[in-house]
């Protein structure tokens, strides 16, 4: 048994060297073929080793999960403003489950748009885009289609305003919980460190202090931001079709090269 392990290890080492040589020589085809062989050898090695160890416990079955779009929706509902995949995952990790990964969100917006185009308004909500002041979809941000248009469009001040609002919402949610999860407190602390007066050094943030500090800065930007957002929203209402209103104008013109 162990003899075949030794042989496999030798073969693996040799294949690795050959793969890397092929890669360095720019021979992509050969590299792929060799990688295939390598993977098979590694699999055989894994199998042999496992067979030798034999006693390995089967992993516990995962509890049933909410569909991805519902997990995202739940996080967005907590935040109340357009958010990046990163923040959505962080909120989900902090308050709900740790099962959502950033990579699962990459095609979400496109899937939602396809579904909307096929049968508009068939679902109670869509995970849609936030729109820039040029009415194009803002990169990487997700929003909820049921939100008022002013909430889903962005002026130059909106990223800061929305960040402050998210911090407030997270702090409020945290304050409501009898036993705040440590991950959530870490998330709030990290955000509060970037808000003047919201956190002291590296110490865990206090939700009430964080809310007060975030509001103090929000007061500075809120009126100007609301005005800019109203203007963009009005323009979007006049110029965009339903689908563009949710998923952005430039998507089509950019992708189809007609601008």
């Amino acid at each position, binding site marked *: 048994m162990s003899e075949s392990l030794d042989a496999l290890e030798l073969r693996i080492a040799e294949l690795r060297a050959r793969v890397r040589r092929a890669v360095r020589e720019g021979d992509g085809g050969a590299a792929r073929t060799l990688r295939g062989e390598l993977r098979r050898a590694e699999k055989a090695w894994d199998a042999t080793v496992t067979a030798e160890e034999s006693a390995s416990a089967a992993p516990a079955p995962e509890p049933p999960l909410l569909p991805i779009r519902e997990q995202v929706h739940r996080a967005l509902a907590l935040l109340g403003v357009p958010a990046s995949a990163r923040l959505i995952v962080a909120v989900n990790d902090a308050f709900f489950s740790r099962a959502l990964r950033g990579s699962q969100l990459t095609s979400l917006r496109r899937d939602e748009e396809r579904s909307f185009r096929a049968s508009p308004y068939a679902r109670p909500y869509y995970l849609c885009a936030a729109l820039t002041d040029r009415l194009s979809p803002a990169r990487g941000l997700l929003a909820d289609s049921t939100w008022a248009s002013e909430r889903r469009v962005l002026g130059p001040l909106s990223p*800061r305003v929305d960040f402050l609002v998210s911090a407030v919402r997270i702090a409020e949610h945290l304050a409501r919980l009898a036993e705040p999860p440590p991950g959530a407190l870490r998330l709030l602390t990290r*955000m509060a460190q970037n808000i003047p007066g919201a956190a002291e050094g590296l110490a865990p943030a206090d939700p009430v202090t964080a809310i007060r500090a975030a509001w103090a800065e929000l007061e500075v930007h809120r009126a100007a931001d609301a005005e800019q957002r109203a203007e963009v929203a009005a323009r979007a209402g006049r110029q965009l079709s339903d689908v563009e209103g949710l998923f952005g104008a430039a998507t089509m013109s950019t992708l189809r090269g007609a601008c």
Partner: protein
Amino acid sequence: MNRLDALRGPVSARPHDARAIAALAANPGCARRALLDAAGVDKDRTARHLGVPAPFGRSQFAITRGNAFEALVKENGCAGLLRLLRELFGLAVEEVGYQDVESVGAHLRHSHTRALIDRAAREGEGTAVFYDHPLLSLEIAGHTSYLEPDVVAFQLGGRFHIVEIKSFAVIDGQAAPDKVAAAARQAAVYVLALRTLLTDLGHDPRLASHEAVLVCPENFTNRPVATSLDVRRQLAVLRRQLARMTEVDRLLAEVPDGLTFDLAPDGDGVPTRPARELAEALSRVPARYAPDCLSTCDMCMFCRSEARECGSTDLLGRQVRDRLGGVSGMAEALGMAEGVLTPAEGQEEIALLLRTAERLRQECLR
């Protein structure tokens, strides 16, 4: 057809990124490199086709770490960066505007950057503080290269600042000097591109500050820390080097007629030019190899083996060559040391020194 296009062959010129442009200043005396870069030849591909690729490579761990740190600094509308700039420059609390230039779509990024910078320069207050994913351009020997600084920040004292986000750590206030120097050289490229844009738009180029902002992780954490980086010297070096590149005509005048570095790619882009012929063509333009090339130039392995064949003292490093009084051939220097070669005029002194050194060495090793 343009001479440079003829050198490159029927492929489009390879654009330079900031790193490549900064590297142009690394070995200014090398005619081979100057011509290859001016013509936009893909040096990496060329070296590979010759069978001597440069020993460069980036680990995916480093790439992942770099991307993750940049994302962290920029998340939530650059909230982390904003805090650093508030601390570093005393930025007013109202100044929080953020524009993601990339949201207009790739093909409009450059013109959108231009429009936003123009507006900011004209209107001053009330415009965005951050321009994320901007796209600038710089003309290098007749070709436009597009450049992507991490962030351009405005409104720090009414000026634009280039922000460079790097994932090497600043530990107890100190960072690896070579990495800081490389960051400063890159930032200088962006400052120059931004100044060129401002000049084009009819604004004062000095609106683009020579103080870049370097953002790095602090100690062993992910916490970003910002430092102001004066890039005046790097700007001056870069300007001088780019000015020399416009003297490429002088270099071209010495290039034999019909010379080309064309790889003659077939329909699938696979080079068909015999490697030996290509090597022959390259050797018609003199290089100035130095061991430093091993970390900066794609052609390094080719030039090193050429220097070996010629027995050049360049191989041993600049320090050795200086010690040998600039004698360029190894055999020549050894010949003088062993007294079998009569020194040329002006070499008597170094020859005497080498002979004495050789005598002392022999005496001690007897």
